[in-house]
């Protein structure tokens, strides 16, 4: 089973829920895997403190030109949809940061003058956090393209069907979110009860509906704002899976990297409740 933890808005508590849910399941003796797909800012490791193996470089293919064969016909530039390759009088310029690695230029070069080399976009790290299998990606600084790295994290983390996979998803509603969430059995949308939280929750709901995965809401920092999120969920018949109150104590524990599940007995119960509700929704839907 794969459960993704997402939210339109950043800083609502995705990592908090993901890491503590993984700890809860692991504590129950479940075979648990956590994937940190927020490759731009991976923070799960700060809470789970995994022992990591040597990082593996992830690269995407970019073109390199054999000038012995190139006739400067310009076909590569013509087929490139990203303006990542340009042909001038006696030279070919490649702009690797614009290249998506589609392979079109190499495929369509009539002279076979283009081959592909790997361009490093970041690393993927695997390890173990007291029995939880841990995989994270770290995008290289200055690198715009997160999606290929997210694909690699998922490829390494999702192997067989025996285990429960928890995915910590990046914020937002665009392609990195879809790539992270795709293939999940359930999505937990974490929000906070403020107008910002509500606005971004609505966007996140549209996103998850678009890929037709069952979902529910966790309200974090309950008590800080207004009742907008509650009213919206009631109106849209979206299940509220559980709530975590706002308290300064929780905020302080979080600041030190203490998982919320370890911050009090009542939180263990909340994760039990959360997990049981998810199971009943998935099974009820089948």
């Amino acid at each position, binding site marked *: 089973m794969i459960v993704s933890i997402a939210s*339109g808005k950043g800083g609502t508590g995705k990592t908090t829920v993901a890491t503590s849910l993984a700890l809860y399941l692991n504590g129950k003796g479940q075979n648990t895997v956590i994937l940190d797909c927020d490759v*731009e800012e991976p923070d799960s490791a*700060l809470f789970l403190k995994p022992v990591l193996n040597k990082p593996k470089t992830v690269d995407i293919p970019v073109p390199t030109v054999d000038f012995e064969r190139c006739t400067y016909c310009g076909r590569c530039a013509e087929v490139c949809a990203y303006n990542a390759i340009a042909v001038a009088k006696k030279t070919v310029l490649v702009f690797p940061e614009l290249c998506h690695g589609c392979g079109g230029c190499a495929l369509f070069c009539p002279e076979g003058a283009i081959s592909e080399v790997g361009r490093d976009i970041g690393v993927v790290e695997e390890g173990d956090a007291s029995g939880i299998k841990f995989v994270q990606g770290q995008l290289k600084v200055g690198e*715009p393209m997160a999606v290929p790295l997210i694909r690699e994290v998922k490829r390494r983390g999702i192997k067989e069907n025996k285990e429960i996979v928890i995915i910590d998803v990046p914020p937002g509603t*665009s392609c990195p979110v879809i790539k992270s969430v795709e293939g999940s059995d359930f999505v937990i949308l974490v929000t906070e009860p403020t107008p910002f939280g509500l606005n971004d929750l609505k966007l996140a709901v549209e996103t998850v509906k678009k*890929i037709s995965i069952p979902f529910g809401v966790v309200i974090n920092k309950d008590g800080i704002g207004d009742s907008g999120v509650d009213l919206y969920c009631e109106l849209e018949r979206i299940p509220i899976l559980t709530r975590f109150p706002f308290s300064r104590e929780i905020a302080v524990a979080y600041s030190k990297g203490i998982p919320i599940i370890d911050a009090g007995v009542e939180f263990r119960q909340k994760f039990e409740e959360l997990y049981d509700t998810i199971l009943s929704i998935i099974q009820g839907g089948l």
Partner: protein
Amino acid sequence: MRQIVIISGKGGTGKTIIAASFAALAKNGVAADCDVDAADLYLLLHPEIKERHKFKGLPKAEINQVKCTGCGRCLEVCRFGAVKKQVHDRSPLFLIDPLSCEGCKVCYYACPEDAITMTESVSGEWFISETKYGPMVHARLGIAEENSGKLVAIVRENARSVALERGLDFVIVDGPPGIGCPVIASLSGVDLALIVTEPTLSGIHDMERVIDVARHFGVKTVCLINKYDINLENSGNIEKWCERNKIPVLGRIPFDNSVSESVVKGIPIVEYMHNMVTQRIKEVWWEISEVKGE
């Protein structure tokens, strides 16, 4: 005219609250919401839309099922897993999954039957608006779309031209979380990046990464610690780190419930009340707006 971007790496540190306050304090600036995935600045600035423009992403592939002979060449050449094969009445049917298609056109060129067309679709909208505090440029990326960097670039470009046309002194950019494509588009060519961080381990980790990105692109960077009193030890560590890395820390904002209250009311906090939080935000703005561009 100076362009100032507010970013943080980590989400939820208070970027939008600061950006809205700066827009209210500046009185001669353009606000630009570059978090096109989850734009919230409008909830505090209440823009009245004056101009509406469509944003077109890259055209995506579509297969003409009449022309398609089912040879499977498209599936072979697509590197993004966007071509899906189904079997109907024992014959193969090839379809494009628009959520996976990156618009590379390789299938379009490779198809021996010319059965693939590239269809342009509207993948968002962008707006030029008026607010109580001055003009605002903002956008809405369609759900599940790509190219947010391109849409950010459009918002930036238009905010800049509005500022130039009207002789305004500032463009205040509310940036997205993260360090990837839309963040790079929000950062490029700005005069100053203000990093809003918080004294949590995640806040620190993410701040360090986003500062590295700002440096990578040669942008002058300053820092602001929000909710600094949640963990004084971590706040001290942020200050030490910034000192070592020559990043000026311009302010420390205490945690206060009035911030959430102002969001619920939909008012930039500096307009909502006067307290320690708003005093500190104002001090940072005065410092930033008086520093002349280099």
